[in-house]
């Protein structure tokens, strides 16, 4: 899923302080799972903001709504009839949701309430870790199912680099060395001979380097 983290409330206040009628818009997908921008977080943030503005003698109205998805035209249409009632939308969706909302409602300021962090997994409640950078050309078949693009700080394709120590990255003991994990997997699967195959230069054209990307599936377009 897309993992996001809450922005510090001071930063949120700074971005919305010039508006009087604000729609706080949550999303029921990834940001709900990672507890950064779902219905619950919308409620908590709305209360905190109301409290802040009340204490500061500022009249600000904050209304709450959480859509099924902010990355889908169908659900975003649900606010078309009410959007003009607001000076701004504070979206707690990921960067995709914020932009999709902004695309759709041209004259309304749409402000981000979370930082979109990465594509990751839930290790345990409150801990999420990165697993994918959406490079557009998956190489996991040749790296033991562990991704050096997203999990190696130098995205080394023929690793590890010289900084790997006791299974940890040169960045420090909190970061696993992706190549140690790859080697552990290759060993466990009895495929260490694959380690010596040189990885070809990666084609980054399908990554960010190639410019904004589009996936088109003619077979399912209506």
């Amino acid at each position, binding site marked *: 899923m897309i993992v996001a983290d809450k922005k510090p409330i001071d930063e949120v206040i700074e971005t919305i302080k010039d508006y009087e009628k604000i729609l706080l818009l949550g999303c029921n997908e990834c940001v709900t799972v990672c507890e950064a921008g779902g219905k619950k977080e919308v409620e908590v943030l709305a209360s905190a903001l109301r409290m802040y503005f009340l204490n500061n003698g500022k009249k600000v109205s904050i209304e709450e709504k959480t859509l099924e998805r902010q990355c889908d035209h169908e659900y975003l249409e649900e606010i078309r009839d009410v959007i003009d009632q607001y000076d701004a939308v504070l979206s707690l969706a990921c960067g995709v949701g914020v932009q999709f909302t902004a695309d759709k409602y041209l004259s309304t300021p749409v402000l981000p309430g979370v930082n979109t962090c990465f594509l990751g997994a839930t290790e345990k409640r409150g801990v999420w870790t990165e697993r994918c950078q959406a490079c557009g050309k998956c190489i996991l078949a040749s790296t033991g199912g562990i991704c050096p693009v997203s999990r190696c*700080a*130098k*995205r*080394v*394709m*023929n*690793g*590890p*680099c*010289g*900084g*790997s*120590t*006791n*299974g940890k990255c*040169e*960045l420090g003991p909190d970061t696993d*060395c992706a*190549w*140690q994990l790859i*080697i552990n997997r290759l*060993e466990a699967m009895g495929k*260490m001979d694959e*380690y*010596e195959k*040189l*990885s070809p*230069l*990666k084609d*980054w054209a399908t990554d960010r380097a190639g410019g904004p990307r589009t996936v088109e599936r003619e077979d399912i377009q209506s």
Partner: protein
Amino acid sequence: MKTEKSRLEKVLEKNFLAVTSECGPPRGSDPSEIIEKAELLKDHVDAINITDNQTAMTRMSSLAACIHVKQLGLEPVLQMVTRDRNRIALQSDVLGAASHGIKNVLCLSGDHQSFGDCKSGQNVHDIDSMQLVQTIRYMRDEGKFLGGDDIKVPPQMFVGAAANPFADPYEIRIPRLAKKVASGAEFIQTQCIYNLDKFEDWMKRVVDRGLHEKVHILAGMTPMKSAGMAKYMKNRVPGMDVPDELVKRLSDTPKEEQAQKGIDICIEDIQRLKEIDGLHGFHIMAIEWEEKVPEIVEKAGLYPRPSI
């Protein structure tokens, strides 16, 4: 155009033990510092590595510093890290280096930028160090750019890589070297060696696999300046293997004599390693202590350098 091979390559080909050293470019635009350092090493080494923004601290570019060194009549080894440049810039700098008569290159991934002075900077890592070796070999041997176009005059580079005989994970120390050799590395400069027993064991396995016949291995040597440095290297520097016994030898030496002790130990170590089967030379990295390199080279019996 066929250019002459580098001095380093010729020394190694003729089965002399090669001696290289290393200098860091200055953190400013005045080249006098690198020129002074290189002058100190001039008669005692076959080639001088010029580091590329080591520890991710911004410095004068390795290529510019190499040109200064080259102008003194010395032979530089251009270090290139894949952290800061993509494949366009790397290929371009290889051509630029070759145009200045620089004939040796060492391919590295580079320390992570979070250790340096631009922690908030982006890193590139378009290709990795082995792929850089492949790239330069391809440019030289096939006379082509990565994109497939012909290079009018291909760069004549002697291509090297680094290896850490003590690095984790243990099980791939030899396979990783084999992979570097397969990528096209012609010489290897190792991480600083303090644990000689372990290094000898690594070299034995290198020889068992026949890798010493495919690549020239130069043992990395860094003299300790003090017991404090030994402790720091032992505890703080990733991938470094400093035996307790070495720390003790330095600690047991009076403080004012520790520097000389460090030099003496380095000389002793070189003399021992000179006898190892398959080892082809020494890379002496006297960090900000270049003036000591001549003494080490002379006393280790590596002087005079062969005239080629």
